[in-house]
């Protein structure tokens, strides 16, 4: 197997802590935050992360396919989640310990509930505003009520982290090769 060539393109406004495991061709957009102990593995193909994303501790983002894994803006990857979806929209929330298989394409404004496993046997696409919840991963559609408040909250969350994280963690700056 060809050795993975590390190529990190981290925006200057992004906050990526030192203790993050990065592998492969990774692009992180402006304003995104990667907590320490997160893992981003672009094993087979590159990963492009948009702006304003928050990737918390123990989150694992893996791309095992050749094609580019595109992650949109303002997504939240909570603690312990494992995401392999080939394309993700914006404003999604992957709750704690959720798992998303590489067969699902996620739209925007979706919420994958805590401990939910989204592993359909064949290729599936989650439409926008889908909420996945419950132990058996039931789905329902959100009316979208309260999305402005949530968007506001997400931005404030990111702003706060951008202020606080550098005070207590070492940051990884620039490109690593």
């Amino acid at each position: 197997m060809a050795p993975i060539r590390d190529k990190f393109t981290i925006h200057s406004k992004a906050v990526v802590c030192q203790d993050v495991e990065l592998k492969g061709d990774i692009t992180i957009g402006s304003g995104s935050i990667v907590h320490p102990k997160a893992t981003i593995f672009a094993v087979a193909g590159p990963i492009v992360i948009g702006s304003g994303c928050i990737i918390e501790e123990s989150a694992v983002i893996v791309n095992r396919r050749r094609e580019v894994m595109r992650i949109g803006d303002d997504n939240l990857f909570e603690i312990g989640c494992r995401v392999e979806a080939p394309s993700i929209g914006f404003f999604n929330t992957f709750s704690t310990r959720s798992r998303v298989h590489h067969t699902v394409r996620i739209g925007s404004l979706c919420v994958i509930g805590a401990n939910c496993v989204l592993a359909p046997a064949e290729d599936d696409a989650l439409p926008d505003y889908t909420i996945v919840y419950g132990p058996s991963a039931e789905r329902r559609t959100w009316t979208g009520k309260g999305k402005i408040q949530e968007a506001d909250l997400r931005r404030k969350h990111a702003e706060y982290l951008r202020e606080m994280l550098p005070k207590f963690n070492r940051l990884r700056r620039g490109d690593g090769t």
Partner: protein
Amino acid sequence: MGPNVLYHCPCLSTSSVPPPPHQISSSYSFHPLHELFFCEECDAVRCNRCVSVEVSGYYCPNCLFEVPSASVRAEKNRCARNCFMCPNCRNTLSVVPSDPPDAGDGRLLAPISTVGEPPFFLYCNHCRWDSSEVGITFEKPTGLAAQLQKLEDSAPDSLEFDRLKEHFEPIIRASSLSSSSTVPSTSHSRHHSNPITAAASAALARDIPGVGKYTPLTRSGRSSGKDRSANKDEMPEYKSRLDITKASAYGSGGGDVDVDFMRRLETVSEVASLDQRWTYSWSTSLETRDLKPLRIPLHSKHSKRCPACAHILIKPEQKAQSVRYKIKLVAANYLPAITVALPHQIEMLGHISAEATKRGTKSTAEDDRDTRGGLQAGKTYPFHMALTNPLYDPIQVRLSVQRMHVAPSGEGEKARRPPFAISIPTTPFSVAPFAEAWEYEDDEDMFALDDDELEARLSGREKEPKAKSKTVGVLEKRANVTVVGGEVALGKEARGEIKFNMLVAYTYRSDDPTPSEGHDISPSKKAVPETKTFAFYTVVDLGAIIPKDEDSRLEAYNV
């Protein structure tokens, strides 16, 4: 399920001998130790089936507010304070303000105020359901119960219920008044607000031929019996508010409304599932979009009493958020805890896990565990029992196997009950008292040893030399645990499960002077220690036997 030990609770039956364990019906009387209580007065084991339970308090699981029992009935067993349950996922709903007006370009023009804008509605964080889907919104974020009260009261179901209550109340009052005497001290037979007790007292006062009338606290021989029975049978006819056949149109479910709904059905998720519907007090319509937020039902804290002497066994603390108990007489504090293990199974598990890590496969390990570590007919296996002493005094334990009556099932079949022979040490052995970890002076590196021993066992090497071949008897004494070994010899035709009843009798020194023999309290300050004996039955389950005819399949797996 691995080998385990369950304890027998006689449940107030006269014979203390437990039923034979191989019968399926006997499983009701055997419990794991953590589910049992112990009454000190009666010196007996009590289980959840024989204790008497009473409610010690009600609280809301969401806001943890303790509701006084008087308001419980008034609020119909629900929380009165803004606690609502999502009808979709049964999580708690929170009150949220609506979004500020959207400029449409996706950017926030003005900072969102902290109070938020009306209208407020209920919102579930988990499944993102909100009450505007059923049309419930509020003007203020507080006092939701009051705002919803009007809505609830005008529902046709509660109106119907109120009408029923109004209809029956004068009848109950009339019958209870005529049955009770005019003595004002009979507070319990008059003005029963609870219709159940009112009906019960009316039933007690009914005229039964041949039996003297039950007249509580009254002069005997009141002659109003005939009036009572005549009164009871007459009741004005009840006319319901709505015709029941048309009631389904108002959302109570059933009838033509359901049929029409089913015809128009497009996806299964439109139908409300059973768990979503059955917490409602009344029957509701079948559609998911008709599910309304519910007030959260209250939970109660129980206190448990011994059925024989009414001594309190369990008494929880009054505060809703504390999970501790004021009184906690559990059997684990009095009876030795017994665990049983089959050492050859542990070795096999160790082998398998070691091989699996080398090979990296998991699928074959499960098959092997059942066969190689299992109990095969025709062989003899040792087993270890560890007894842990919870008392602060040393105890002497004596074990004995209860004789099991093995009856053939008849019709010329082989005996269905597995014939096996158990040999366990029958001489009494002692178990050291419980003490804090630092008080054990001879086992200073006890905990460190444990890890090494465990590793040694798992990798198949025995720490003790193989020359020690004794399997039956006391194997090890460590801290307050004594491990004894026994042997089970399986017959060639054995099948089924290995379960046997075991009587455990232990004696301990108790310092309590028995109050019954104090004819005059002697002035000696020294309490006379006496040895008390307590005996209880347990059932030891070693697992299922793999019958002989399956062994040929096992040969292929055996390395």
